[in-house]
């Protein structure tokens, strides 16, 4: 259920944009059946909107099937019922001073997809309580909605966070009390954000979390401060003259489940125990910071030694150091012959013979079983093979799975076609990868040894997955001027064999496309442009460097 609430004929509210996005949704494949509720408006306005809908055949068809309903104006009590039942509430306003509809929906536990304008930008926290898209961008709006339609767990987790934020910042009696204070005094310090009203920091460092840290470390005299703004709450601890990092693993959902259709039979759960078990699996990994304390119960918690972050090394030196570190990771805990590996090989061969989504899904299941040793036996989607990822993307692009701009699709078609043409699917035994070697994860101990924090994306993969991810993070992601030549030079320098170079290029391409599409479904168009720019020169550079022939 996708809900729009507002005056339907008010040009600022963006109903025509929403209807355009709905029309786009009707053209996509792999979406579960959805319904549209439009709430608000006088009888005259409803008649006007009905005429509009009946003029457009996809909308007329939805209306005829009872999947598009015009509710007109409803009482607040009824409105709350509707918000509670919606997968997502859409606020596509061209302009909005505040955005009370977004707050009402959030209060009812419904995530909000809103245009990035006015107060909506402040109310909705992208990726936590909903998504923000560029105003007047129907493709962007449609893309953000697809993520909620494909992954009901995204609704559950964002909805819960939305409700918590609404209660914390927008409870009516509290905001009115703040106004009343101003009638008598100016002693209240002006706030710069909603979250200053009730400090967000207190929400993160709750009494319960603090008590657990103290009990686990066994020190009462302990100083705790928030360390990062990532998905999981992370704290710096000082206790007994030593410093530690404490990380709580909160549950979240799989990004793949929000992007790919038909991920059924694989868990959409992430974070929580899955992350915790992955960290434990890598406990003896030479790259992992030493674990000092851990606790599985409740929200899992791990305390590791504190280390300096490695930030002051030049890119060139860093590449060599990272390669050395990552190769240690690859040789850790090698896979021995086992039934899971045999199934993996078998399903890979079947995809190589005749690639289709059904066979790729069988391969995903086999990969999940292979990696279940580090996920507490949970079967989750693990991207293990770069050519399979390219095949998957090629098929999903051809089936119009996402509402992407034509220019982007053209570039993706070209590069994937080029990388897969006349190439056999590479077989072999997957090796352990860190899975997320970002610059901010790099640490160094007092002896200068490199460590990499956060093994929660760890998995067995084919080819130089970690190196390719490193190149994506440091050479492509976020940079409109990403230089394909420079990235290929780094691949050629750090990958020893032609096969490694080829697989490295496949990983880079699949990763940047995956990330761009993921960001687009979060309402962020910029990464599409970044990727498009990067892919523009890549074919020529790959040929020139003999990565492909």
């Amino acid at each position: 259920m996708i809900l729009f609430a507002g005056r339907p004929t008010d040009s600022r509210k963006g109903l025509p944009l929403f209807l355009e996005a709905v029309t786009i949704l009707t053209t996509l494949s792999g979406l579960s059946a959805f319904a549209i509720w439009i709430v608000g408006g006088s009888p005259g306005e409803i008649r006007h909107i009905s005429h509009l809908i009946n003029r457009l055949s996809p909308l007329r068809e939805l209306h005829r099937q009872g999947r598009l309903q015009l509710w007109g104006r409803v009482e607040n009590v009824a409105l709350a019922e509707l918000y509670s039942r919606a997968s997502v509430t859409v606020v596509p306003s061209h302009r909005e001073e505040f955005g009370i509809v977004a707050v009402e929906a959030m209060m009812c536990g419904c995530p909000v997809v809103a245009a990035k304008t006015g107060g909506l930008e402040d109310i909705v926290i992208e990726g936590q309580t909903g998504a923000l898209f560029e105003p007047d961008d129907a493709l962007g709006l449609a893309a953000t909605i697809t993520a909620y339609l494909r992954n009901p767990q995204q609704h559950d987790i964002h909805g819960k966070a939305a409700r918590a934020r609404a209660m914390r910042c927008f409870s009516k009696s509290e905001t009115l009390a703040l106004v009343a204070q101003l009638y008598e005094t100016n002693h209240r310090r002006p706030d710069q954000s909603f979250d200053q009203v009730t400090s967000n920091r207190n929400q993160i460092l709750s009494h319960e979390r603090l008590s657990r840290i103290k009990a686990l470390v066994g020190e009462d005299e302990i100083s705790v401060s928030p360390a990062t703004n990532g998905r999981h709450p992370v704290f710096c601890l000082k206790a007994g003259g030593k410093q530690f990092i404490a990380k709580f693993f909160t549950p979240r959902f799989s990004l793949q489940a929000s992007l790919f259709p038909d991920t059924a039979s694989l868990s959409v759960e992430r974070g929580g125990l899955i992350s915790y078990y992955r960290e434990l699996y890598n406990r003896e990994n030479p790259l992992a910071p030493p674990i000092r304390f851990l606790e599985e119960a409740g929200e899992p918690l791990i305390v590791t030694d504190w280390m300096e972050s490695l930030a002051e090394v030049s890119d060139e030196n860093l590449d060599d150091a990272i390669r050395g570190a990552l190769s240690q990771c690859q040789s850790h805990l090698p896979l021995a012959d086992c039934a899971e590996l045999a199934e993996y090989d078998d399903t890979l061969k079947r995809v190589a013979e005749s690639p289709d989504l059904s066979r790729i899904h069988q391969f995903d299941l086999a990969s999940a079983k292979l990696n279940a040793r580090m996920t507490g036996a949970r079967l989750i989607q693990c991207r293990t093979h770069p050519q399979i990822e390219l095949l998957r993307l090629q098929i999903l692009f051809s089936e119009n799975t996402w509402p992407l701009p034509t220019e982007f699709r053209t570039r993706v078609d070209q590069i994937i076609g080029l990388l897969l043409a006349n190439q056999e699917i590479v077989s072999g035994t997957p090796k352990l990868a860190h899975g997320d070697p970002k610059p901010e994860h790099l640490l160094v101990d007092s002896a200068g040894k490199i460590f990499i924090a956060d093994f929660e994306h760890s998995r067995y993969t084919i080819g130089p997955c970690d190196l390719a991810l490193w190149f994506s993070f440091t050479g492509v992601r976020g940079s409109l001027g990403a230089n394909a030549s420079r990235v290929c030079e780094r691949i050629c320098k750090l990958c020893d064999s032609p096969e490694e170079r080829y697989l490295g290029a496949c990983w880079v391409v699949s990763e940047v496309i995956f990330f761009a599409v993921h960001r687009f479904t979060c309402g962020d168009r910029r990464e599409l442009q970044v990727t498009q720019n990067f892919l523009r020169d890549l074919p020529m550079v790959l040929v020139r460097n003999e990565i492909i022939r």
Partner: protein
Amino acid sequence: MNAIVEVRHIGLVCFIADPFDPPGHERFGGGHLFLFDLGRFLVNQGFRVTYITRRNDSAKPVFDQIGPMCTIVRLEIGPPEELLPPVVGSYLDELSSAFEQIIDEKRFEFLSLHSHYWIAGEVVRRHCVTHRVRHVHSILSLGRVNREKGEALPTNSPAREQIEIQVINSADAVIAVCPSELADLRRLYPEVDPSRVHIIPYGVDPDVFYPRPQSESDFVRRQANGFPQGPAAVS
């Protein structure tokens, strides 16, 4: 006659919308609802509240007592019909005179006057030049933001912007409803002192808006089956 002296008497001043218009009325929105809720909240907190607005319908009384602690005064300025805000702005001087007159006549003594939108802001600012009353102002919208968004500008737009600067600089406290509104103010109005601007969002009643459990007799099912009276009607 003795003066009406209220220790905690608040005046809520808004000329572009009548807070007692029913939902679904032409200009009903978040700000409109806020004024209505604010008055009710203040009365519950023991304040005496007087709404001062413009009469936008000849059927409405000029003066209305709503319970013992709440009154509404509708100034008879301009035609008694709904007017667009720029048109209301063209009656600024007349609204100001009528405002002074009604305060004298009713002998109101306010602890604080809370203006909404620049027109009420200027009327209250003029009043506060000669009266020691605390002035709280809610921005609601900014002329230069409208200009930036390319909206058609009324002829009194430059005057509006100058008035906005005066009002924000002279008010004891200013309310922006979100950080973006404050950011717009800082960016587009370098002439104003933002140090007294407080961010206070519109609130929502958590007793009305809360997650509903899915149930056999839920609202949607009742509607779909034509039993709008509730679960008791569902067999």
